[in-house]
Structure formats: C-alpha cells, structure tokens
C-alpha cells in the first residue's frame, strides 16, 4: 500500500507517517502542498492520499478536485486531515468526493478508525 501524506507543516507529516507506520503502512511519502503532490500522484501509483486543506500554493480541496477530475486518479481514496472545521467546508469536501474527514487536533484512534472505515467500504464495493 503506497500512501502520500500532504501537509505544509513537516511536524504534522511526520506525525501522520508515524501513525501510519504503527498501523502497518510503511510505504509512505510526503508532499508539502497540492502543487507538489499532484505530479507525484499522477506518476506514482499511489493507493491512498492523506491531505491537509489549508496549504500555500495549492490547497487540499483543489488537490481533491484535481484528483477527482483525473481519470487515472478518480477512484483514489482520499482522507482529509485538517483544522478547517466550518460546516460549509466539510460539506464542500464531501461533495467534492472526499472519503473521510478528520479535524485537528485528532487522536491516533480517530485516524485509525477513519482509515479502516475507508478501506472497509472499498473492500465491500
């Protein structure tokens, strides 16, 4: 399972990657905004994307839109991990096609639960 973690704060990328490692996912990569992430996704055979929302350059929601607009990436599972907590934003993310939404600060348990839920649903489909 190849995973891309996108966040402009390196501490958060490290935290998420460490948590993923604890969950048994060791093949993880990082990008600091959507602009860097998109070409990585397009050429990298990723299985899962974890992204922040508020980032300079290209935001997570724009990255999500780009992913859903790309025929090769349209089915890529995306988990948003962000401090953005406005209801409108969560609805927008859902409408854009996010697979899970975790607000910061979060616990290791929450992240695990959301990731498991996403893969459960994919396995069922």
């Amino acid at each position: 399972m190849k995973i891309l973690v996108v966040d402009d704060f390196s501490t958060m990328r490290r935290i998420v990657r460490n948590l993923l490692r604890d969950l048994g996912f060791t093949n993880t990569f990082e990008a600091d905004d959507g602009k860097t992430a998109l070409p990585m996704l397009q050429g990298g055979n990723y299985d899962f994307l974890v992204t922040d929302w508020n980032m300079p350059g290209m935001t997570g929601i724009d990255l999500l839109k780009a992913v859903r607009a790309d025929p090769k990436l349209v089915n890529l599972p995306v988990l948003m991990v962000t401090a953005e907590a406005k209801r409108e934003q969560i609805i927008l993310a859902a409408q854009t096609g996010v697979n899970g939404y975790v607000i910061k600060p979060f616990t290791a348990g929450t992240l695990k639960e959301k990731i498991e839920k996403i893969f459960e649903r994919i396995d069922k489909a």
Partner: protein
Amino acid sequence: MELKENPQLLLAQNLVAALEDNDETKADEILDQISGMRESVLFQEVGRLTRQLHDAMNSFSLDSKMVELTSKDIPDAKERLHYVIAMTEQAANQTMAVIESLTPISQELSDQANELSNKWDRFLAKDMPFEEFKNMSQEITVHFTQTKERVASVQGGLTDILMAQSFQDITGQIIRRVIDLVQEMEHSMVELVRLSGGKMKTGATEDDTELELPGPVVPGVNDKANDMATSQDDVDDLLSSLGF
C-alpha cells in the same frame, strides 16, 4: 509697472516716503497695514491645515478596516495567542506526564533484565544449584509476561508523545494569522502617518484581504456562531447526515 502687482513693495515704498517726510501718523498706518496682511496670510494657512487635518482624521476614522482591527481583530488576536499558550502548555505537560510514567517502567525492565542476565551467566557457568534454576525459570516466565505488557505501555506512551506534537501545526497556523494581523496594523499605521503628513488620499481602502479559510477553531474566537464543527463527533454526524 511691477509696483501695482506687488502691494507689499508699494506699501514699503510708501512707508519709506512717509518716514522721509517725517509723517509718523502715516508711517504707523502703513506699518499696521503691513502686519495685518501678514496675519491674514498666516490665518489662511492655519485654516487650510486645520481643514486638511480634519478631513484626514475623518477619512481615517471612516476606514472600516481600522474600526474592525481595533474592535474585533485585536481582541481576537489576544484570544488566539492565549490559546497558543494553552496548547503549548498542554503539549508540554502531556509529554512530560508520559515520560514520568514510562521512566520507572523502563527502569524496572532494565533492572529485571540485568538481574536475570547475571543469573543466566551463572547458570551457563554451571554455577547454579537446581533449586535456584527452578526459581530462575519461573522468574524468566514472569519477566516475559511483564515485558510484553510493559513494552505495550511504552509504545502507547510513545504514540501519546507523538500526538502531543501536533500542537506545532495548530499553533503555527494560529500564529501565522496573528502575523497577518500585525502586518495589516502596520499598514494602517503607515497610512495614518501618511495622512497626517498632509497628502490626502481619496478613494476607498485597498482590496479586502479577508482570509477565506477560518483555520483552527479557537475557543472564544470563532466558535461563537454555530457554524463550526467543534469535535470529530460533529464532523461524523454531519457526514453521516450526508450519507457517509
């Protein structure tokens, strides 16, 4: 011919003439006229500056951005910074609490391992009576069980320490916003200096730099309107209402 265009010069010449004629009354009269002229120019100038200052102050106080800065954004920034202090303090305490609880566990594990290792060396050197060997075997069994439990709690603690570091992202985002506010303040102060310098700028303020992303929820700042999800449960409820 130029005399007509310069009343001051004309007055001065008349004054010289009057003085030469020893006509003191006329000379005094001309002197009054000259000083009167000076005063009226001065008054005009003071009047002009007053009006300019008044207009400048007026346009400045009408600048809604300034009003918002002082009445809303600065108190908000204070709240935000207090929240940063609270979050960093919480992270530090969380980390130290885990370390304080794990240090004795790790010490105990190390003591046990040392003790057993000494005994094991004696056993290998065939320097151990059978009774003691039986005890050691039991001790080793207990040690293995305890080690599994304790290592699990050490790993849990490490995850807690890891999670405690997430404050850096949240506080970083909050501080960035306060820096933006300080820059806006600086801009407004420069504007004030410029306006009071006399060069009036007409027209409205510059384009609104309002941030469209509200960022981390800061208690007491942006959780007042009921449009924020304040917990993961809120998010989950909202998403499930959307069919997730």
